[in-house]
């Protein structure tokens, strides 16, 4: 039969036990351990040997345990799961038992991160509970794998640690129960200062019926100094030091004396708690305090271990070197006067450490390094706090994304499948075509073939204007330009389509109409291009989709865009009034279609490319004539007067200038007028105030109104009852906000045109598109009434200032004029698809081209 350990004997006979702790040194000197053992001998029943506590390399707990035994003291070997897998652990356990070690404390172990080799690979093959179970298995004669141990089995009195103060607090007793279930017979707790909390823990253990199954030893540590107490309070996880303890130390003259007294007081208190079977004194760096504490607590003398015998010899006398054969058995070791040795020990040794490994108490060095680490993590904490605050600011003080609108977008995927099929078939063809077209007119003389077909339709309209640009080398020019344009009409149509399909689900609805012109008869396509594509091939959606349930592709808007009247009398135009996404005629109506305004300037333009200037050069000097030319020659239905000359950063012309120009223009034409200021918020107030006086009675639109000047200009507009342009930097929420501000000023929504600040093709067009689309979807499908306002898009200005629109004709870039026209028309068409209601453009041909397209789109 196995011989029980001394500790087990005492506990099982109901004695109140005292254990202490020794931390082995960080070198190979056996004397350190022996000396520590000598200090404790006679005052404790057993002593724990830590297993590389805080993951710092030290003499192994097994070797130290044997050294302690040589001093006649019973060791409790600690074993962690940090450094060994189940093979190493079992091997060491067999070895420990063979060496006569009988008490074993099973721990998970501190993470290497806390130690002096943080780079080490943490093993943790097992956890403490699995380790306990494994040890019990060994005792019962089987290895972890279930294999039988043949021959002598190891014997251990199995212990475990538990931290009553760690979180989750109410799980701790349950975890202790698990350890008991696994096979733990005694428990040494984390350091107790908060006796009340510990009492609750013990109460809970009693309820769980654990007290009959396990001996609980309360962990006690005398605080050596105020600093140490504070360190433990703030830096050791799961260690609660009540303020009262701190206070006692603060008030005490002799801190060490007070520390010892605190430990004694706590021992007295925990002793009375039912189920506490002993104390485990961890006097860190302060072993000599243990005898004093034990004495004062009335726990001295200790019962002598009856027949404690190490299995082999280590030389008994301190001075001599170990030389003797291992077999010789040494009897009792001298019990010498403790005090004397204590003195010596203290002088010589720096690292006197003692602690339970799983709990966090460190030697001075470790304390400092950990303090550093804590400071670091505190810093990190502060940083992440700052970050959090920054994020909160971002979240709450900045604009939010218009999510709901997105939802609307996603709502309508029903049509997709249908489209996709057709689209995929078509795409490659279209692309090829586009390429051909681009190359042909430029480089090669392949035109003849194409010409004839193109001619009949388009010639008459375009001839005169395009001519001048074309160089003389190419004889049959009249036709060519047309052909270019006509053919390129194709790309104009196709591109938006392709884009939409690729990037936006929503747009899908526009497609059916456009696509079908090309789609139905693949072979005819070429013709279609030449003809201009838009006429005569249309098949109504109802026919194309006759096999589909209507609700699969149709989603009617629930809102409607307000109608804004511009101008007065016969020539007045209405914009807006749409109850569907633009050109989705199968879902709703576009009462007024898309309107155009020709843009003129108050001064002679300086940076207009030749391809644009040549149409107006004769009237550049006089805005009135210019306006007149637009109306009479190019059929403008509205004029936008851009007062760029008043810009303080440009010519800074006075308001009177603007007024004069406006006067002249008003007299010259009878179509509705839009007056667009320089965009300088302050200047525009002065200028538009003056101008409104002139154009107000004509019902002209004035703008742009921005947030900075909305109060004054809204007042002006209301005074003359004119519509306004509400201009905001391309953003759904800003646009809405401005509308709300204006409405709050008393300006009704049907007097507002939104200018979302557009970007030209290649200069942010796609972003403009998506923002406009979101605004429009919110207006139509999310009942966002504040956005149910028509869009006004100042296209010409953005397009014609681009580098590409101004570059001359060359091999790479193609013809300057058609390039410019296409850029403007493409921007216009795209924005019209996105919801644009009133487009301000410059080139007569691009307006014509847009109109042509819209006519086609409107045929459903």
């Amino acid at each position: 039969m196995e011989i029980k350990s001394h500790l087990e004997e005492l506990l099982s006979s109901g004695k109140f036990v005292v254990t202490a702790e020794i931390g082995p040194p960080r070198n190979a000197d056996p004397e350190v351990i022996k000396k520590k053992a000598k200090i404790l001998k006679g005052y404790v029943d057993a002593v724990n040997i830590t297993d590389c506590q805080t993951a710092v390399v030290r003499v192994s707990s097994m070797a130290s345990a044997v050294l302690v035994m040589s001093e006649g003291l019973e060791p409790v070997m600690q074993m962690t799961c940090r450094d060994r897998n189940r093979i190493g652990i079992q091997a060491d356990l067999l070895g420990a038992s063979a060496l006569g070690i009988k008490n074993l404390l099973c721990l998970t172990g501190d993470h290497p991160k806390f130690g002096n080799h943080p780079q080490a690979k943490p093993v943790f093959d097992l956890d403490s509970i699995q380790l306990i179970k494994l040890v019990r298995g060994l005792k019962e004669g089987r290895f972890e794998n279930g294999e039988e141990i043949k021959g002598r089995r190891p014997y251990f009195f199995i212990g475990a640690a538990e931290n009553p103060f760690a979180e989750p607090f109410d799980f701790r007793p349950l975890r202790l129960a698990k350890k008991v279930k696994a096979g733990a017979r005694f428990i040494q707790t984390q350091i107790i200062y908060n006796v009340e909390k510990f009492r609750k823990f013990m109460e809970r253990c009693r309820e769980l019926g654990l007290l009959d199954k396990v001996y609980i030893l309360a962990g006690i540590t005398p605080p050596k100094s105020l600093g140490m107490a504070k360190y433990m309070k703030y830096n050791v996880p799961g260690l609660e030091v009540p303020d009262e303890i701190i206070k006692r130390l603060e008030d005490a003259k002799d801190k060490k004396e007070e520390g010892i007294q605190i430990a004694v007081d706590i021992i007295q208190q925990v002793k009375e708690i039912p189920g506490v079977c002993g104390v485990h004194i961890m006097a860190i760096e302060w072993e000599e305090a243990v005898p004093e504490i034990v004495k004062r607590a009335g726990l001295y003398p200790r019962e002598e271990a009856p027949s404690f015998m190490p299995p082999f010899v280590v030389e008994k006398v301190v001075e001599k070197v170990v030389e003797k054969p291992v077999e010789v058995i040494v009897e009792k070791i001298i019990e010498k006067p403790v005090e004397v040795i204590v003195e010596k020990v203290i002088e010589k040794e720096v690292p006197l450490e003692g602690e339970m490994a799983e709990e966090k108490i460190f030697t001075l060095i470790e304390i400092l390094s950990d303090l550093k680490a804590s400071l670091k993590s505190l810093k990190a904490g502060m940083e992440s706090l700052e970050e959090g605050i920054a994020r909160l600011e971002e979240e709450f003080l900045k604009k939010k994304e218009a999510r709901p609108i997105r939802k609307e977008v996603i709502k309508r995927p029903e049509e997709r499948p249908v489209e996709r099929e057709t689209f995929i078939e078509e795409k490659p063809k279209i692309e090829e075509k586009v390429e051909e077209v681009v190359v042909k007119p430029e480089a090669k003389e392949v035109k003849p073939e194409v010409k004839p077909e193109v001619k009949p339709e388009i010639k008459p309209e375009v001839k005169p204007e395009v001519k001048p640009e074309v160089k003389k080398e190419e004889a049959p020019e009249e036709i060519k330009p047309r052909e270019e344009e006509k053919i390129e009409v194709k790309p104009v149509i196709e591109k938006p389509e392709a884009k939409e399909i690729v990037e936006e689900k929503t747009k899908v609805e526009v497609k059916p109409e456009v696509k079908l012109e090309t789609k139905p008869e693949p072979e005819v396509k070429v013709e279609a291009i030449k003809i201009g594509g838009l006429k005569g091939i249309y098949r109504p959606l109802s026919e194309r989709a006759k096999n589909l349930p209507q609700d699969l592709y149709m989603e009617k808007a629930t809102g409607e865009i307000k109608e804004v009247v511009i101008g007065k009398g016969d020539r007045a135009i209405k914009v807006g009034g749409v109850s569907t996404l633009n050109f989705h005629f199968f879902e709703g109506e576009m009462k007024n279609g898309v309107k155009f305004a020709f843009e003129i300037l108050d001064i002679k333009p300086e940076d207009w490319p030749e391809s644009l200037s040549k149409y107006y050069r004769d009237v550049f000097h006089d805005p009135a004539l210019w306006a007149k030319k637009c109306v009479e020659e190019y059929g403008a239905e509205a004029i936008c007067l851009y007062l760029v000359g008043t810009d303080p950063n440009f010519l800074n012309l006075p308001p009177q200038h603007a007024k004069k120009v406006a006067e002249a223009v008003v007299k010259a034409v009878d179509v509705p007028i839009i007056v667009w200021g320089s965009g300088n918020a302050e200047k525009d107030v002065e200028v538009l105030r003056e101008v409104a006086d002139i154009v107000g009675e004509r019902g002209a639109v004035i703008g742009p109104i921005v947030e900075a000047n909305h109060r004054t200009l809204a007042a002006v507009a209301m005074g003359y009852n004119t519509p306004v342009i509400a201009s905001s930097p391309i953003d759904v929420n800003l646009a809405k906000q401005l509308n709300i501000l204006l409405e709050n000023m008393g300006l009704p929504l049907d007097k507002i045109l939104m200018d979302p600040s557009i970007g030209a093709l290649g200069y942010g067009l796609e972003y403009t598109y998506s923002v406009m689309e979101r605004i429009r979807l919110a207006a139509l499908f999310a009942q966002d009434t504040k956005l149910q306002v028509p869009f006004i898009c100042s296209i010409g200005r953005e397009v014609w200032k681009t580098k590409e629109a101004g570059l001359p004709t060359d091999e790479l870039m193609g013809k300057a004029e058609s390039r410019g026209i296409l850029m403007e028309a493409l921007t216009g068409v795209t924005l019209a698809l996105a919801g644009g209601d009133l487009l301000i453009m410059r080139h007569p041909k691009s307006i014509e081209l847009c109109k042509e397209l819209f006519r086609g789109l409107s045929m459903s």
Partner: protein
Amino acid sequence: MEEKGFKLSILCCNYTNLSEREDFFEVPVSLEIKRYPCSGKIEITDMLRALREGAKGVMVAGCMPGTCHNGRGSERAEKRVLGARKILEEIGLEPERISMFFVNRLDGEDFINKVKAFYREILNFELKGRERK
């Protein structure tokens, strides 16, 4: 003061300024101005490439936070500058050779002043580098 072969590269959002080379007559080095539709479009690669192609410093200019047309483009640019700087550090160049500037839109003077300040900073690096040699 004019340095032969001393080049600075300015990568900027088109909307931050309308300055042209002649506006920088006070900066006695060759300036390369590359405009992007938004500073958020300027990639780390663009910044590094500018250095490789001979620029001594790369100035990334974007709109003041909150005024970017595209919402947060200039903030993105700022982050990318951090990414580029990390690489510079790794390969042993002063990270400040790539710097982010937030510029008041169309405030040409502000912009030009920032360019000048940046030029002085880079000039310092160059002088130091020469001392070392």
